[in-house]
């Protein structure tokens, strides 16, 4: 029997001609990638709630100067007031308006959460990728360091570091938190890199003459974006909670206005004794909501990488 090769059909009309000979790589540009990522997160139920919550908090932080009725540091009010017409959340022991403090406080918490999370993730990615791709001595050394960092209890370490640093500021907290929360992410990223490095397209890249840097950052890393994003949000969550803890313990800069310092002063000034439960409840709830929003977005990120988790 012979088979005559039929002429392959033309593409459906309207599709054939205009495929652009675009840029050399389809690793999508950051803006398009972000757009696509947000859309996918939005389609996931938990992710959507997380995004909304995060957006609200971010909006509050940005618009604090507009929304706040008073200056957060001005000690112009009578102290220890309960919520009333002028001071919706009451006043602190120093006569400051708590509501305005809450609004401005969002800035610090958000900033620290995102920055420390980013810093921790950068360290985690670098160490994890190198350890995962290069086997042998390098991997052994890096893994040892990672395991060491994992084993040391982070909060006590943070407390010690923060206590020893003489210059107190928000950035101290960012550095301290980043320094102690990279290890979990590094471990996870290393495992994933180990799996990916045995995939044939990595071998293929080596056969195409790619050098180490390109293989790691242009071949392996792009296939791990969801993992890295998940790691980032995890680190950000930890950072928010850690920052609040450190400030509550008095290790932050007492002149900053943040949710953690509100709690610090509340404790110093015996808010519970004076019956000012709003001063305790509000910042606590806000911190929890911010951490929650990161976690919910993280669920959405999981769905990004694992299609089976995507809801209909």
């Amino acid at each position: 029997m012979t088979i005559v090769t039929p002429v392959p059909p033309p593409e459906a009309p309207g599709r054939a001609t205009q495929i652009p000979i675009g840029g050399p790589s389809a690793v999508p540009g950051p803006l398009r990638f972000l757009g696509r990522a947000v859309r996918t997160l939005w389609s996931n139920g938990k992710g959507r709630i997380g995004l909304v919550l995060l957006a609200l908090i971010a909006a509050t932080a940005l618009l604090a100067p507009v929304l706040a009725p008073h200056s957060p540091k001005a000690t112009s009010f009578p102290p220890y007031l309960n919520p009333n017409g002028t001071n919706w959340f009451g006043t602190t022991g120093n006569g400051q308006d708590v509501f305005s403090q809450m609004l401005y406080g969002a800035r610090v918490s958000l900033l620290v959460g995102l920055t420390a999370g980013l810093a921790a993730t950068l360290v985690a990615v670098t160490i994890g990728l190198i350890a995962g791709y290069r086997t042998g001595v390098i991997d052994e050394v890096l893994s040892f360091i990672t395991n060491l960092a994992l084993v040391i209890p982070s909060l006590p370490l943070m407390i010690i570091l923060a206590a020893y640093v003489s210059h107190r500021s928000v950035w101290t907290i960012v550095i301290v938190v980043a320094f102690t929360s990279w290890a979990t992410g590094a471990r996870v990223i290393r495992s994933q890199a180990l799996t990916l490095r045995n995939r044939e397209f990595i071998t293929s890249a080596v056969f195409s003459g790619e050098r180490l840097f390109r293989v790691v950052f242009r071949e392996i890393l792009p296939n791990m974006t969801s993992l890295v994003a998940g790691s980032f949000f995890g680190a950000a969550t930890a950072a928010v909670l850690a920052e609040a803890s450190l400030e509550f313990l008095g290790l932050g800069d007492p002149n900053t206005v943040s949710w953690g310092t509100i709690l610090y002063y509340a404790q110093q000034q015996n808010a519970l004794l004076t019956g000012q439960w709003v001063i305790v409840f509000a910042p606590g709830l806000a911190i929890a909501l911010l951490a929650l929003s990161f976690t919910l977005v993280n669920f959405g990120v999981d769905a990004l990488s694992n299609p089976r988790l995507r809801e209909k």
Partner: protein
Amino acid sequence: MSADVDPAAGHVKPSGSSTAQPPAPSGTPPLVLQGVSKTYAVRGRRGALMTAVDEVSFTVAPGASIGLVGASGSGKSTLAKMITGSERPTTGSITFGDIDVGRLRSGGLRTYHTKVQMVFQDPYGALNPLHTVEYTVMRPCQNFLGMSGHKAMERMHELLEIVGLTPSAQYAAKLPHQLSGGQRQRVVIARALACDPALIVADEPVSMLDVSLRAGVLRLLAKLREERGLSLLYITHDLLSARVVTDHILVLNKGRLVEQGPTKQVLQHPQNEYTVQLLDAVANPFAAASAGPA
């Protein structure tokens, strides 16, 4: 010997009687394996060794098409890795002209890859899911041939045409998941051809493809041999595709070379029991006509 191809059909006929074939690129040396062995230490059992390849010797002459056949565990993939420089032989030597393949380091390895390339088994795993066809095929042109963007793009289109992905403009922008298995394998082959290698090691290139797509890819390999004088080392467990593409065949069992000879002869008159087992394992509906329910 050339592979007789019928361009109007989806056919490919195997190498028949000797006919003229364009010579291999001048200066292509033979690939010589001499007493090559590979042993691995077995985890958990101190001192125990696992022999993947056991004293294998053969030569791939310039322009030849050699089949390495065996089931899994026969050592053929390990041999492929050693030949392409991904692993080092424990004993024995692999030479490509005056290049000692077993001793190559990263710089020498890159140069070696301009001469010896690989086509992989898994069309779904051999392409980075995030890169377009364009990117994948252009990279070796830029890395090995030092071509700038515009020239590399021209070469990329040329390569896509050679492997039959026409119109090349249409395929260039596609991502792997938009292509069929056969099309992906063609991209893999295009990538391997970028720097005009002298020898291609094809590791089970059609085993993971649907049967209807195999002839096309095999025909492409045969055509490349014919038109460019490429040497081909074809690794597989499937004797049918080996028959179609190779002139000479080497049968591996548990790391040892148990039989070798001209392909047609070995398949029609197998001497070793393992070869017979491999023959019986070939999928063949027409055998069902003679067999039948007991």
